[in-house]
């Protein structure tokens, strides 16, 4: 009877350890965005954004009749970093309050001035230059926003405001990120119960705890395989390369701690099962 109960507790422990791993990884991805200022964008993502912006400007240049070099002199790394900071605040608003923050905007004044000067230098009239330059600057500014925050902002904003009217989104997100602490407490409780049930021979509890750790490793591995098979990454990459880069950075920030945790569980499983077998091996020698 005790053995059956111990295996049942070990089964529950395996589930709780796996739940802790998955919720820990999700929280690691989301929590930086909930801090003041949001998640800072990595250098590699910003470099990719700059390349996409350059490509877009080269496409727009012949359409709006401006020089791509002039535009790239105005669209500097610092300005894109500032746009990324604004985008991080936009996400921060959703994660903390359930309502998006202020929509990022690229200041078009400098671009308009630079384009107008180019048009006048090419022989255009002042009035015509100003209109054409403003059009071109707006097109460039919109493209930059679409690369930094590649979402249909009115649709997302409307959806979030409708959802916020019905539920407290910020509270739900805080609750979901807190699940890992509940899972950890349940893990400690179950491991303690197993040790208590096997208190006369503590070594026996290593069999159950070690097996639960090994089972949790298998469950986490299965979850990762299912995620890989779901095809979410290629789906996002197909929709928007800049969103794919931002999402990839987010997944990486969650994947590294998850792999470390899984390795720790595997090491724990091997150590527990070896320690459980050792006294018998010593007796056999």
């Amino acid at each position, binding site marked *: 009877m005790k*053995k059956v109960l111990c*295996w049942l507790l*070990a*089964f529950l422990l*395996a*589930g709780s350890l*796996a739940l802790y791993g998955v919720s820990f990884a999700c929280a690691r991805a989301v929590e930086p965005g909930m801090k003041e200022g949001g998640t800072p964008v990595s250098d590699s993502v910003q470099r990719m954004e700059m390349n996409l912006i350059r490509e877009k400007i080269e496409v727009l240049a012949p359409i709006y009749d401006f020089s791509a070099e002039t535009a790239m002199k105005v669209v500097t790394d610092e300005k894109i970093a500032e746009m990324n900071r604004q985008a991080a605040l936009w996400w921060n608003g959703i994660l903390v309050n359930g309502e998006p923050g202020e929509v990022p905007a690229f200041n078009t004044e400098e671009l308009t001035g630079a384009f107008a000067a180019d048009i006048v230098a090419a022989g255009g009239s002042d009035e015509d230059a100003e209109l054409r330059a403003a059009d071109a600057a707006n097109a460039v500014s919109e493209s930059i926003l*679409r690369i930094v925050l*590649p*979402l*249909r902002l009115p*649709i*997302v904003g409307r*959806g979030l405001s409708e959802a916020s009217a019905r539920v407290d989104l910020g509270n739900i997100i805080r609750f979901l990120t807190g699940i890992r602490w509940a899972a950890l407490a349940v893990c400690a409780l179950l491991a303690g119960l197993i040790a208590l049930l096997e208190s006369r*021979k503590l070594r*026996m509890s290593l*069999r159950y705890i*070690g*097996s*639960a*750790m*090994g*089972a*949790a*490793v*298998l*469950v986490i591995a*299965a*979850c990762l395989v*299912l995620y890989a*098979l*779901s*095809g*979410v990454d290629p*789906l*996002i990459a197909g*929709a*928007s390369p800049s*969103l794919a880069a931002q999402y990839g950075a987010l997944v990486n920030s969650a994947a590294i701690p998850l792999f470390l945790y899984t390795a720790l569980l595997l090491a724990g*499983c091997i150590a527990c*099962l070896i320690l*459980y*077998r050792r006294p*018998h091996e010593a*007796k*056999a020698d």
Partner: protein
Amino acid sequence: MSTENRKPGKGIWLAPVLLALPILAALAFAAVRFGPLIVKLINAAVKATVVV
């Protein structure tokens, strides 16, 4: 000789696999039953909200 004092065989390494089997079976069932629907929903959400 009681069960607990018997020398554990190499079968102990199978215990994690046996313990994980019910959860893996539930995951496989959920993936087969609801996986395509979830992927379709994600696909629709991405198409509706992402600027191409």
